[in-house]
């Protein structure tokens, strides 16, 4: 019973530490981001720069992608600037050739770090087209196995 009574106090301290910890964490993250360090260790994408200011993209890419996806699906607008397909083309990892096949791959690494779940890859290809030799496996080979 005594232990129970102490719990709220414990909880309070726990909360304070948790908050401090979280603040420290975000502080580190932001200083490093300001310093231009990729966090966590992310492979550099193809080309010299992203389609927009990196800080802007880092912050707003969910909204940009969401807006773009609605325009593409509903209105058939197929600009490439904020297209997920283009993200994949530049950011596919050199080892896996994918943005989301291993823990180090671009999307997964960061989203795991940020603890934000995403379900893009349930449906979208994680590898760029063309370059990957996916032209061969046409139909008949696929049949039967189930």
């Amino acid at each position, binding site marked *: 019973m005594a232990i129970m009574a102490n719990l709220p106090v414990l909880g309070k301290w726990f909360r304070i530490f948790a908050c401090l910890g979280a603040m420290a964490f975000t502080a580190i993250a932001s200083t490093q981001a300001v310093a231009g360090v990729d966090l966590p260790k992310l492979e550099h994408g193809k080309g010299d720069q992203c389609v927009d200011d990196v800080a802007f993209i880092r912050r707003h890419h969910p909204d940009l992608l969401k807006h773009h996806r609605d325009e593409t699906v509903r209105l058939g607008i197929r600009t490439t600037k904020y297209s997920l397909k283009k993200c994949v083309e530049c950011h596919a990892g050199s080892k896996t050739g994918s943005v989301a096949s291993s823990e180090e791959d671009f999307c997964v690494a960061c989203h795991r770090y940020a603890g934000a779940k995403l379900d893009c890859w349930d449906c979208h290809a994680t590898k760029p*087209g063309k370059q990957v030799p996916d032209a061969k496996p046409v139909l008949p080979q696929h*049949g039967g196995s189930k």
Partner: protein
Amino acid sequence: MSDSVNSKQEDRRDFLKAGGLVAGITLAPGLLFYGVAQSRAPEEGVSSRQRWGMLIDTTKCADGCNDCVTACNTENGLSGKTGPQDSQWIRKLNVKDLHTGYVQSLPMMCQHCENPPCVDVCPTGASTKRADGIVLVDRHACIGCRYCMMACPYKARSFVHEPLHDQKPDVPRGKGCVESCTFCVQRVDKGEQPACVEACDAKGHKAMVFGDLKDPQSAISRALKSTDSVEVRADLALGTGVRYQGI
């Protein structure tokens, strides 16, 4: 393989050339628009000045030929399996007249209705019709209730029953959503023909014509004007974008 690729490309060039020719000849500004509209700029949205449609000549469609189905599977990354739980966006139907015994073969897929029942019933609005008449499932909003499958008179839709991998970059698909023929929207937006039509042409059957129903100069409009064609289940008055001739 390379042969067919070459011929495909040539076909495409012809197609574009023809488009340019039409645009050039008509010259009248209003009509010029239709000609150019084939290759809409990427930032320009679809408009209702177009309506995509297809005309299928069943007399040219050979029994046992599966070229359109194969092309569709390749283009859209379908497995090609035909179990009860596998997706089929286009399928070949064998239709036998019970009185005369006359057998015909024809491809059946989403008919891209003017008034699609799937769009009417979808609770979230995921099932949608673009301004240019292409009926699509917006997978970002689909909750997988399958009501649209219940409602479709053509059995055009499939439900993805298992997790998928290695999708085509242009054709996202995934577990738990409903899907169906898109008229190869990723190609149409680039000014190309759907994969099935291209394959049917390339193999020399020429049983399918695809184009803009609202452009009086398009091949499909002219063909429709000069031949008798029907909608499947015309009694439902859905105004299908796909029409058949010879049945």
